[in-house]
């Protein structure tokens, strides 16, 4: 019986850790909801900040975040889906080890050359998957540095040198475009992984039937594989969006500003951003007492946005998964 007691005790301890995690989540959300909901009025969402950020609303930050996220999705989703399609449909399914072994065993056989290219393709796929996983692990501030060093200083300045009168800087500074490109890189792995997962759920028989009926590989992808994996791709896009909407480090030097008297009307404009606004109000607020309700309100809106997106993505994903398991 003593063993039973120790058992129950240890299991309770484990359950306690789950409770701790849930408690943390509840405290964070409740604290923000309670203090933030009060500040979120209709004016808050539709007006611009005034009196040095101590009054008014956050409408430009909402618009800026939306514009940024839209642009980021346009760049990231097609690219991510294409990469995932390449990895799943155009590379050998058997993995590098097997492909290489088949090639080595095939001494003197007729299809040796073909097996060699198959093995190389499998190698490329492995390296690509590794690159995707590494891209997922790059710190967000390094993305920011890359955005500054590559998109702005290298590409942007060179475009300026070719198209602008000397001394004028248009593309070689922070803007919606470069911030969106930087964020797109950051969310690319999320989209790729989710899309590959979705592609995996399409039964191989479906593809083979399509090919047997005379369709080309591209036609099979376009008319059979992609449509049936659309919900999974959507999940990836939504999860990527929710991640991108919350990241601040990559946009610090690539285009975010904390007070603009206009809305971004052009991809070369700077923009205000919900997350960046939170950072500024928390650390550089001109009058901490006056801006605290605004700060809470902004955090509330940001959290509500990302949670909603995340939840939608997770629900779609679990429903797709359970449909497969059944």
């Amino acid at each position, binding site marked *: 019986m003593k063993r039973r007691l120790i058992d129950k005790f240890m299991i309770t301890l484990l359950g306690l850790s789950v409770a701790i995690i849930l408690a943390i989540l509840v405290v964070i959300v409740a604290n923000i909801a309670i203090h933030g909901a009060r500040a979120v009025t209709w004016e808050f969402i539709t007006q611009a900040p005034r009196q*040095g950020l101590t009054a008014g609303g956050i409408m430009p930050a909402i618009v800026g975040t939306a514009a940024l996220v839209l642009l980021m999705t346009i760049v990231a989703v097609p690219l991510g889906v294409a990469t995932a399609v390449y990895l799943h449909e155009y590379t050998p399914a058997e993995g590098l080890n097997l492909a290489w072994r088949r090639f080595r065993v095939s001494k003197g056989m007729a299809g040796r050359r073909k097996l060699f290219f198959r093995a190389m393709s499998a190698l490329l796929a492995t390296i690509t998957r590794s690159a995707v996983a590494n891209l997922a692990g790059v710190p967000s501030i390094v993305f920011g540095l890359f955005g500054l060093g590559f998109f702005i200083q290298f590409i942007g300045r060179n475009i300026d040198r070719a198209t602008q009168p000397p001394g004028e800087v248009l593309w070689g500074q922070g803007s919606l475009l470069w911030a969106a490109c930087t964020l797109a890189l950051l969310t690319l792995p999320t989209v790729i992984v989710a899309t590959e997962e979705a592609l995996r759920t399409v039964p191989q028989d479906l593809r083979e039937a399509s090919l047997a009926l005379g369709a080309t590989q591209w036609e099979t992808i376009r008319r059979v594989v992609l449509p049936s994996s659309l919900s999974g791709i959507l999940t990836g896009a939504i999860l990527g969006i929710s991640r991108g909407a919350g990241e601040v480090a990559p946009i610090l030097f690539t285009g975010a500003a904390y007070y603009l008297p206009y809305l971004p009307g052009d991809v070369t404009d700077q923009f205000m951003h919900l997350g960046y606004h939170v950072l500024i109000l928390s*650390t*550089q607020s001109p009058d901490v007492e006056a801006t605290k309700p605004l700060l809470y309100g902004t955090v509330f809106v940001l959290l509500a946005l990302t949670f909603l997106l995340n939840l939608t993505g997770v629900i779609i994903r679990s429903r797709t998964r359970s449909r497969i398991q059944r």
Partner: protein
Amino acid sequence: MRAMNRAARMVFTLTLVLAVAACGGRESRSTFGTDGSHPAPVADNKPLSIKGSDTMVILGQRLAEEYMTANRGTVVQVNGGGSGTGIAALINGTVDLAMSSRSMTDDEKEKVKQNRGSDVVEEPIALDALGVFVNSANPLQQLTIAQVRDIFRGKTTNWNQVGGPTAPIVLYGRESSSGTYDYFREHVLDKGDFAPRVQTLQGTAAIINAVGQDRNGIGYGGIAYAKNVRALSIASDSGPAIAPSEQTVAGGTYPLSRKLFLYYPQNAPERARKFVQWSLTPEAQALVTQVGYFPLTKAQ
């Protein structure tokens, strides 16, 4: 299957159309009035970009708001980041005007000349007092510059060494990009180094907030932000302790008063020059007092 294809294609096209529409020309930009409303779209005009001192950013924004109301059709955008950030942006060519709470070094002036092709113009637009702040619960009322120096250099570590209660001194300072940081380092620390223990915060208001919450805290910053904390009277090496106020700052008796500057290259566009001229007019200088700084006296 076919219906889903068509639906997907429609959504895709719609998104593309929206995206293109969102990327409309600059002409469609709308600005906000000082009451946060949106007036009608204004004529095309490259915005005047001002960047720099966090000490001056509120002043800059107030001036910008007034200027835009007085000159319908202009767009002025103001950003902080610290005097160093503004000067760096001026050198890099990404802003028209830099706000700075310290004077530019010769090295920086040289870089502006190199990168932008002309000398830099220095224009003081206001006076500021640098306050040394302690928590309201702290009984201290005054300190000498030498004592402040030793505190921020890390030599004095306990309040009882300067006549306060027995408690460790908690130091709050600014990022190295700040003009306030530079001014303090030059005039109080005698160009020495801050103690490593100084917690660097972005913006004077953050320092005020931290000191206000920490009874053992001490910090420095522009006097305009002082709320719920006490600005100590400061004694220079030979004189009595002077409290910061309009008379002592304008009169020059408060030892830590400084000019706030706007910098621009001589070959800057007209919009920059116009703004600087305007900020020296009486109506603009009235705003200076409103925000909490001190207007330039006739001598300056």
